[in-house]
């Protein structure tokens, strides 16, 4: 252990304190939103909103939001649909295209690659996409959340680079053993690529969980909206609890705690899985940058 000079020791201490304060700053907004969500009407009337923790935490806001047949539970199902079905289709489309573009001696590979790259640089913009969705009849369909984003060029590139890094000898050996292209793909390449596919799948799944704008513009039907759009409606106080749930409630929770509870409801699943998946995300971010 090298002996530290006085200046360095002070730096060390200041550094630790700064990082602790920063960590608090990252967590504090989540904490206050949690405490806000637990405030009951009585306490709100008596004390106003702020305190680090309510004296008598109540779950009224959650009960209201999650009561049977509520729009929030329905929205959760929609979100699950887009996360599961969406991610699966994302992976199917991304992997196949990436695998083909990774073949060095494929005739026309350059042209295909340019074809896929151009949309990264130039896009038609919001309105032409909207007109397209309208024309092909995807407006107000849950598929509008899945199909327009089937392939992210960026994720596809990461996959392609991964496939290109696989040793070519594997394929040559398989051909000698009489394996056809399909066998090579399903029995050799895909099993070897599971870590990369899982990482990309995670990226897609989180993107689906968090997405809201596509649903907000393409879908009008309240019962087809995902959690994030319902949250936005509640934050803007525009939505969206159905009359029958409201009549069963004796005392309405304060709107601030209702909004906060909805934030918590739509965040908790991500926060639960995030610490376990963090290292895969970091790995994915690094693969993407090293050879992009």
């Amino acid at each position, binding site marked *: 252990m090298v002996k530290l000079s006085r200046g360095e020791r002070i730096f060390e201490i200041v550094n*630790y304190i700064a990082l602790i304060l920063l960590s608090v700053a990252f967590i504090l907004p989540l904490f206050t939103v949690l405490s806000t969500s637990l405030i009951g009407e009585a306490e709100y009337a008596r004390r106003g909103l702020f305190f680090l923790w309510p004296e008598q935490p109540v779950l009224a806001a959650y009960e209201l939001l999650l009561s049977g047949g509520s729009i929030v539970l329905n929205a959760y199902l929609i979100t699950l649909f887009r996360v599961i079905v969406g991610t699966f289709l994302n992976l199917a489309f991304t992997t196949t295209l990436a695998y083909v573009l990774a073949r060095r001696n494929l005739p026309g590979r350059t042209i295909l690659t340019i074809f896929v790259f151009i949309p990264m640089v130039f896009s*038609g913009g919001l*309105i032409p996409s909207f007109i397209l969705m309208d024309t092909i009849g995807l407006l107000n369909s849950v598929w509008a959340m899945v199909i327009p984003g*089937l*392939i992210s060029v960026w994720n596809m590139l990461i996959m392609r680079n991964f496939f290109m890094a696989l040793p070519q000898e594997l394929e040559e050996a398989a051909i000698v053993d009489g394996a056809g292209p399909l066998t090579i793909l399903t029995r050799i390449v895909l099993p070897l690529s599971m870590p990369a596919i899982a990482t990309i799948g995670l990226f897609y799944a989180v993107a689906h969980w968090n997405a809201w*704008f596509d649903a907000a513009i393409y879908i009008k039907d309240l019962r087809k909206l995902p959690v994030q759009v319902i949250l936005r409606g509640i934050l803007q106080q525009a939505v969206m609890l159905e009359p029958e749930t409201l009549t069963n409630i004796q005392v309405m929770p304060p709107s601030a705690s209702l909004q906060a509870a909805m*934030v918590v409801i739509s965040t908790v699943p991500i926060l639960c899985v995030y610490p376990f998946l963090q290292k895969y995300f970091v790995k994915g971010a690094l693969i993407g940058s090293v050879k*992009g």
Partner: protein
Amino acid sequence: MTVESITEGPLVTVERLTRRGPRPGLIALLKAINKNGFYYLLALPGLLYFLIFHYLPMFGIIVAFKDITPFSGLDGILHQPFVGLFHFERWVKSYYFTNVMGNTLIISGLKLLFGFPTPIILALLINEVRTVWFKRTVQTISYMPHFLSMVVVSGLVMNLLSSQGGLMNQFVVALGGKSHAYLTDPHYFRAILVGSHVWQHVGWGTILYLAAMAGIDPQLYEAAMIDGANKFQQIRHITLPGITFVIIILLIFAIGGLLNAGFEQILLLYSPAVYSVADIIDTYVYRSGLLGMQYSFATAVGVFKSIIAMILLLGANWVARRLGQTGIW
């Protein structure tokens, strides 16, 4: 065919090469294509996806050169007369042009100014931590906001800044100030945008820098210590030069994306009270196009943005390549 019967002798070989049947190279190519049929088939769904959902909208910019309403339908889009650059002119001459362009560049510039150096500083701080569990914990916590949805972050901002007892106002009141509706005040709105942007992305932004720092040869530090360099000199002369190329590349691409000032974030947080300081190209396109139903005009504004963004991005890539880096493609 008639030419063939007339020509004889040495010309026949020329015929073979030029007219009859493909050249040997072409044959090889066709054979290769045939042999690779499986792969083209495999790529087909993905390529069709790009054709329909990326290329068709590109041709859809034709809307910007006509007078299309939501009720024109496909027929209208195809058959209405062209109006030339009418909508582009209207946009460039409009009252909103300077305001919207100014907001886009100012907000984006501010985000660059504060959002770009902060991950470097944080990475330097984290890199100096030698307690492994503490380092891991700080990293995990600082990456976390990156995974929250924009809607959730906007909810956190509203909760924090609420004029009805949000944490911020409680502090202000406790310090003797007056409760204030920050989110609808044009004086504070841009600061809120930049602040929440930095909060959400500063941690995640450290990843590449930390990776680059981990790649620096530890012998350099040992040699520097033997030469009597202190911590600050080591940071200044070893760590920073070691990550310079990452900094330059990220900066170039940040400039390449300068027209993206954060559409979703602004859309979720702004209100008519702050349009004057918050309205950017994307929000303007959204409002005039999807809410105001001016399809042609909004498309024109969008195309205007796409073209400038394309030039910026290609320029950024060109500069990155000139600097000997790979660029993004």
